[in-house]
């Protein structure tokens, strides 16, 4: 197995996330800044960082108000960290959290910073609502007007239809299709059955419930607004119960995707503490794992050439080649469950000879994954998926799981994102 490719691999020291709440649930009145700040505060408390100046804090949100242009810096200023800790925002749809971790890890590897926090937050409850394009243009004209006459002319452009606001929708701008509709096409293409999807969903709930049961999240999570567990978790979920749900995406025979095997809209935030081994040792902090490598891919979903959420399938072979690894070398694999069918389609593609040959240019298929290594602590179907918060959730949980497995064990993270993108990263237990 190849050694880490970076000269000074960044250490994953630990993480903190809020329990994820269902949209319009317990966090309905909390803003992204509230969520991210609370998440940071829990991290600061866990690792005794009050008053510390960290190298950088990098985070983001997918659904973002225009006033939140400096969201992460504002969260830092509202936290107990030193106000001298710089911060910036990133945004790569659902890949935001993991991409933020890669950015911080890279700066650490390059010797530019010794410590940093990566994270993300999202609230579907406090989503930004914009005025209609017509009203916006009228208001901008009014703002530019300097004379009374110009003002009257600008205002005369107002139309009744302008009062209808623009609410953000989970829709790809270039296709007009929702993510679920895109996924339904991909699920059909790969023949992913309803039963297989419900199976995966039930396993997600079962695994997450078991993780809570053994206290796994005691040092990964800080309650918020009275919520101490992910609201979406159904510990008593079963294939039988899931089978009773009506499909919500796709049509007729192909309609296999339900509210049970698709992630619900969720509110929450997560952060991960990264640093050099030395920085951690100076503070008596643990090193759970190191960031070994990362790869991002994108696909042309607009022309229908590839499924919207299939980009991770393309990132993996490049990553494996660089590291001289096979998929089967990973002790644990985390594939973000945007939909159960996303995970299953990705796994099916890696097993498919033609896909691997024609699309990935491989002489042999990547092969099957031992499912006992997949999402062992539950994933987004059970926990929920506040878009930008998922990366941080997975990085911290996987680092801890790998540490439990033992030094040298490796884990793979795969997160698909809107716009036909996918982010992957490899962690190795310290």
């Amino acid at each position, binding site marked *: 197995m190849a050694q880490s490719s970076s000269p000074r691999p960044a250490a994953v020291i630990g993480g903190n996330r809020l329990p994820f709440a269902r949209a319009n649930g317990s966090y309905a009145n909390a803003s992204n800044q509230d969520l991210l700040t*609370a998440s940071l*505060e*829990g991290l*600061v*408390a*866990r*690792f*005794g960082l*009050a*008053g510390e100046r960290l190298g950088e804090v990098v985070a983001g949100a997918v659904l973002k108000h225009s006033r939140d242009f400096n969201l992460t810096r504002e969260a830092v200023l509202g936290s*107990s960290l030193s106000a001298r800790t710089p911060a910036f925002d990133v945004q790569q749809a659902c890949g935001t959290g993991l991409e933020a971790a890669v950015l911080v890890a890279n700066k650490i590897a390059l010797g530019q910073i010794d410590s940093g926090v990566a994270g993300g937050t999202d609230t579907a409850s406090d989503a930004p609502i914009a005025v209609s394009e017509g009203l916006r243009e009228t208001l901008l004209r009014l703002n530019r007007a300097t004379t009374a006459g110009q003002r009257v002319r600008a205002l005369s452009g107002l139309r009744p239809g302008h009062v209808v606001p623009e609410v953000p929708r989970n829709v790809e701008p270039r296709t007009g299709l929702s993510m679920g509709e895109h996924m339904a096409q991909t699920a059909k293409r790969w023949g992913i059955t309803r039963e297989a999807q419900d199976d995966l969903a039930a396993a997600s709930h079962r695994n997450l419930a078991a993780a809570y049961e053994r*206290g796994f*999240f*005691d*040092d990964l*999570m*800080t*309650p*918020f*607004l009275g919520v*101490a567990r992910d609201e979406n978790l159904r510990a008593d979920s079963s294939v039988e119960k899931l089978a009773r749900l009506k499909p919500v995406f796709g049509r007729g025979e192909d309609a296999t995707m339900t509210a049970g095997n698709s992630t619900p809209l969720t509110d929450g935030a997560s952060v991960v503490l990264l640093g050099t081994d030395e920085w951690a040792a100076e*503070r*008596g*902090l*643990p090193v759970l794992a190191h960031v070994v490598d990362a790869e991002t891919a994108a696909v042309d979903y607009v022309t229908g050439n590839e499924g919207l959420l299939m980009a991770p399938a393309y990132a993996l072979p490049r990553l494996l080649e660089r590291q001289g690894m096979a998929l089967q070398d990973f002790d644990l694999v985390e594939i973000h469950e945007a939909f159960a069918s996303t995970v299953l389609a990705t796994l099916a593609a890696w097993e498919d000879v033609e896909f691997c040959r024609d699309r990935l240019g491989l002489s042999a298929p990547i092969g099957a994954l031992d499912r006992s290594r997949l999402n062992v602590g539950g994933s987004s179907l059970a926990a929920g998926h506040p878009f930008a918060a998922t990366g941080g959730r997975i990085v911290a949980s996987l680092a801890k799981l790998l540490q439990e497995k033992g030094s040298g064990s490796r884990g793979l993270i795969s997160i698909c994102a809107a716009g036909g993108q996918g982010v992957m990263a490899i962690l190795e237990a310290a």
Partner: protein
Amino acid sequence: MAGTYASFVNTAVGKKLAAQLGLPRPARLRRYAVGAPLLDGPVLVGGHGDAPLAARARDLLAAEGVEAVEAAVPGSGVAGVIADLTEVQDPGDLETLRALVGPALRALAPSGRIIVVGRPPREAGSPAQAAARRALEGITRSLAKELRGGATANLVLVGEGAEANTEAPLRFLLSGRSAYVDAQVVEVGAGSVAAPEDWTRPLAGKVAVVTGAARGIGAAIADVLARDGATVVCVDVPAAGESLARTANRVGGTALQLDVTAEEAGRRIVDHATRRHGGLDIVVHNAGITRDRLLANMDEERWGSVLDVNLRSILRMNDALLAPGGLRDGGHVVLVSSIAGIAGNRGQTNYAASKAGVIGLANALGGDPAVRGRGITVNAVAPGFIETEMTAKVPFATREVGRLLNSLSQGGQPVDVAETVAWLSQDANGGVSGTVVRVCGQSLLGA
């Protein structure tokens, strides 16, 4: 958070009405703030015979820039009285105390301090001496009830040979740190005592663990330990994590989300303190719950959970905490008991069992030769009516009665308990072990 009654009687109308009706008027208590003088005026110091402790007290006062006087000067007040009765031989000698303290009372300043110093009766050389020594307790407790304006009276019993160990108890009882500690008997014995470099940071460089630190008294304990210089590990159940993080970040410590009833809780605390902070010097067992029911209606769950959280978890954690590699030699353990564990409380057989048990534990461990041999002290504090979120939920009438049924005619603040805990955590206080200090304003309950 003053009570409704306390707020009312301090208004112009309330003052007049209370005076006419002879109702109690709770005074604003003098509380410690960093940099505040030990006392705001001169202290009358005297005693019987050679009064060896009076000499030590004068040195202490001089070091703090407080004037020590031989007799109360008519027309000018005194901030406190220290009466050394360590040399009484028989009850006739008690006249010294009356003659010294009595005339000074009218001149005693608000939140004044009376400290009577004696010897433990069981070490007496004769029955007459034992009687005289024990009499001091009766005098102190009665005197505390006569005092007004937030003044307190406490008794310090100094074991033979432990004279040098009295500085920390005297400082505590004279200062605003002991605002709500009234009519207590503190016994000072042998033990390793180390004065701090700086008495405003007596816990500098120490690592402390406080369980139940998310809210109320536990959060106040974390605040005061940190103010006194300690690095504080704040422990509470995972569900209280949000408040716990707030406490930890406020005091610049670390948060450890942990259920104290978990099998490995003690080991995890030791691991955390050792790895993160390099060791463990102070443990405050504060976590506690109530599940009230009359015994006739008490189910096994209510009974068991209260005993498990409040008492049995401490016994389990102590296995790891007091084992080699846990609490350092010369460390301190403080257990938070309750007045309910002394006086009993209707509907609280389970809670009182746990809190009385805590006292038994402090007595036993605090006098255990193996523990004392390592220079470790173990003590308990027993809060009376303290103004917390918990007591704010008590029905109005019961709450007001709880507030007023004590010599200071008011409830205490969480910080009052915290100050007492911080004092019992000082290396300078190494002569006090196995004792229970009530922080109750001389509550009439269980007195």
